């Protein structure tokens, strides 16, 4: 084996190990972080840097242009799609209040009146209401009461 080939192998192995390590930290972050939005941060990290590193490692190791082009395509797809799905999930998460607001230092979106006041807390947010048309005024009324109580106490 020539020197060049072994150097390429070492670089590829480093990329693969770093990517695998990032996947591990993503798993750890997924378990440790407190709410959906911060778990989202942990999840997007292997999607971007980890996958890029693994694809670079694979492109170095694999011979043949066809496989390299396809790995490039996978990396491009990840780069394009990861922000879109992350944004869609996080937007729904924020609207449905899957956010630990007590852990936020500042929340300028809610200060600006963007707070979603139709649904009560996030539980049982995952189940659709059985009768949406009746559930809506109900939760609006409860929200109203809660707001009045809050303004009295503060």
């Amino acid at each position, binding site marked *: 084996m020539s020197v060049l080939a072994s150097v390429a192998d070492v670089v590829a192995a480093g990329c693969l190990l770093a990517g695998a390590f990032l*996947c591990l930290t993503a798993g750890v972050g997924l378990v440790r972080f407190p709410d959906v939005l911060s778990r989202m941060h942990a999840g997007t990290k292997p999607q971007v840097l980890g996958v890029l590193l693994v694809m670079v490692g694979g492109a170095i190791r694999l011979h043949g242009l066809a496989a390299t082009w396809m790995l490039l395509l996978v990396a491009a797809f990840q780069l394009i799609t990861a922000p879109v799905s992350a944004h869609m999930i996080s937007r729904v998460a924020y609207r449905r209040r899957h956010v630990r607001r007590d852990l936020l230092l500042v929340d300028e979106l809610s200060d600006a009146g963007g707070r979603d006041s139709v649904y009560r807390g996030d539980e049982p947010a995952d189940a659709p209401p059985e009768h949406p048309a009746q559930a809506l005024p109900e939760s609006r009324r409860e929200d109203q009461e809660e707001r009045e109580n809050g303004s009295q106490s503060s």
Partner: protein
Amino acid sequence: MIVVAVIAHALLGSGALLALVRLARGPSLLDRVVATDTLLVIISASLAVHAALSRDPTVVPVLVVVSLLAFVGSVSIARYVGGMLLQSATGEGSDVGLPRAAEERAAEEREAQG
């Protein structure tokens, strides 16, 4: 290379295991979506690691499919969860496209109040 393979697969495997823990425990649907997404990415990464270490490009097309499926899956679930909001907003359950923005709704409520 065998050492590299063992270490990389151990790292990826424990990452996938932790994602599974979150998938099982996740208090809400969205947590599970995030966990599934991460799990799929870890799976495709380990397929790529396998392909790279054994110099075997057979599984590379699978990577393309998995990466696109992960996107379609998480987007459709996000739309589904958002759609629950939407159905209750229109009242009769008809689909009108995107959910109305929270700002818009808050402004309407303020107008209705005073």
